[in-house]
């Protein structure tokens, strides 16, 4: 890395693309936040803004786009990766520079998260599993203010502040505060479930009989190869208004799942284990609630019925996200963002005096 400062090491994928231009970038970076976005673009920072915008959107379509980029189910992020090689470097597949408000209907990703079969007794339905959550949440990458480069998280020993390489780490299961039972990687691998490429359906239930508190994360199932069994299962469930419950092993974790028809497809939802969800009725504060007076209930019911309507999820917007997208757009267009000072309540009682004085000052 000729002349590239050591600080740049953390950049993984972009590192290869950017080093030649980095001195120029560094000159531009301080004080100008737009360079943050530029740095993610594998194109020279000096490019005119219009071209950069194009670069931003194309970078997401590059063939080396990580399959998992933006599609990693939350459940997987917290699990212990089995292959040590994968995690030696904290490779964080970059979410390609997000095009703000892209909103087009998208094809399912070519590569599914998982492939296997739904087994119902002796019947097998070959399926692919895709994430259903579009990762529309917003997040920021932590950068070094001076050079706009992403920061890496190091594993630092809390005792001697030294950076510890992966091969010198073990897993600890905290049994008491600060006390751990130690596991070697091999020990864990022995007990973690093998993904056996099967979703075993145990029974069919009315899916409304399952309370939404147990719903974790939805995935889309698509037929893999022969689509007849898939269509058949979909039809049967639709007619019976039922859902299949069973279990699925994804990577290293086993989940209870529910499969049901939804918008012309089969949708699989991972479920939470009973012990992961608390029973609100078991909280002391809630156990002791008194009962309401019938008169008051009547009034409350009236209010509820007056405000009753149909739920439309589109009525709710992620306003913070919209703000961020707007700012990103402006920054990409080179607009300088000025932070507005928080607005204070106006001293209304003094307004009249102020207005009169301003009027007088104007006329004199």
């Amino acid at each position, binding site marked *: 890395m000729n002349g590239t400062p050591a600080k740049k090491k953390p950049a993984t994928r972009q590192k290869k693309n950017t080093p030649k231009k980095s001195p120029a970038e560094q000159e531009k970076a301080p004080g100008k936040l737009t360079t943050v976005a530029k740095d993610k673009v594998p194109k020279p920072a000096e490019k005119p803004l219009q071209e950069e915008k194009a670069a931003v959107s194309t970078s997401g379509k590059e063939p080396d786009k990580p399959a998992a980029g933006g599609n990693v189910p939350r459940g997987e992020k917290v699990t212990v990766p089995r292959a040590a090689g994968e995690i030696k470097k904290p490779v964080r597949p970059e979410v390609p520079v997000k095009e703000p408000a892209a909103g087009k209907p998208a094809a399912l990703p070519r590569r599914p998260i998982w492939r296997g079969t739904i087994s119902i007794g002796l019947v097998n339905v070959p399926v692919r599993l895709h994430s259903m959550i579009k990762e529309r949440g917003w997040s920021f990458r932590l950068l070094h203010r001076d050079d706009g480069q992403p920061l890496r998280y190091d594993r630092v020993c809390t005792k001697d502040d030294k950076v510890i390489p992966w091969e010198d780490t073990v897993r600890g299961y905290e049994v008491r505060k600060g006390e751990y039972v130690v596991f070697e990687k091999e020990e864990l691998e022995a007990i973690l479930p093998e993904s056996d490429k099967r979703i075993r359906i145990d029974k069919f239930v009315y899916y409304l009989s399952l309370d939404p508190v147990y719903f974790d994360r939805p995935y889309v199932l698509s037929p893999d190869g022969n689509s007849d069994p898939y269509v058949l299962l979909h039809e049967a469930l639709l007619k019976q208004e039922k859902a299949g419950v069973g279990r699925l092993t994804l990577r290293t974790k086993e989940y209870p799942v529910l499969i049901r028809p939804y918008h012309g497809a089969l949708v699989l939802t991972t479920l939470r284990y009973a012990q992961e969800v608390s029973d609100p009725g078991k909280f002391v504060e809630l156990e002791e609630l008194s009962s309401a007076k019938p008169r008051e209930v009547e009034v409350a019911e009236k209010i509820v019925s007056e405000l009753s309507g149909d739920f439309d999820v589109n009525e709710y917007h992620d306003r913070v996200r919209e703000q961020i997208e707007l700012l990103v757009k402006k920054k990409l267009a080179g607009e300088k963002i000025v932070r507005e000072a928080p*607005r*204070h*309540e*106006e*001293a209304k*009682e*003094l*307004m009249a*005096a*102020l207005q*009169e*004085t*301003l009027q*007088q*000052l104007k006329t*004199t």
Partner: protein
Amino acid sequence: MPKEQELAGVLLSNLDKVLYPEDGITKREVVEYYIRIAPRMLPWLRDRAVVLTRYPEGIAGEGFYAKDAPQGTPNWVRIETRYSETTGRNVHYIVIQDLKTLIWIANLAAIEIHMPLARIGSPDVPDVIFFDIDPEPPAGFDAGREAAFLLRDALLDNGMEPYVKTSGKKGLHILVPVEPPTTFAKTRAFVHAMGRVISQKNAGIVSEASESQKAGTVFMDFLQNSHGKTLICPYSLRAARGAPVSTPLSWNELKTVAGPESFNIRNILSRKEDPWEKLAQQIFHGKQL
């Protein structure tokens, strides 16, 4: 309820704080007063490095002279930095150039605003001559009034046009505009000389600093005409019971006015005309050296 409120881009705090406990006057009323009186006051404040007397805990609490702009002074406040020989450091004076600054000042609980006799571009060149008539008890307002009329006649005889105001306390202030160039040495000498003239007409008037503490006399303080000395700004509130105002008067008004407390925060605004309007405009438009 230490809530902050905004007015004309100024952050106001603790508006419900009572600053005059005996009269129940809150900071909100003080701020409102300074907003409403601004058109009459601002001509006097422009281009002058003011000294404030602040009473954050109200006039019953500890007040303090503030020459230096406080920490957190907004960047839109004009500051005049001047080296102080006596303290050996720079003093950052506030200059109240506009209504916004005056509102901000009022929010500092700066009840009294004192102004120098010279402007920031020429701090050694006074643009007014200041006659400070200071009755020493048991001499009171009436004795001061008598001295003021004597002085007025003497000044008129000299072809000058004197203006009088109450100090808001027991004294009276007489101002005469003066065209630059002049010096404090000259104006001081003139005031001293005038003091001697009228002290000969009335035995109760003294013109020498050595006699100033003599009970029952009225002292013509010529020493106030000096670099760095200030006088209470016309229409400034005073930190005294009843919230009296240093009030410009016409000479006819002076004949009948009962005393310095006749004009205060609650009645001054109903007096629509400003007897000093002509002088204020003259001072405001005066040349700066």
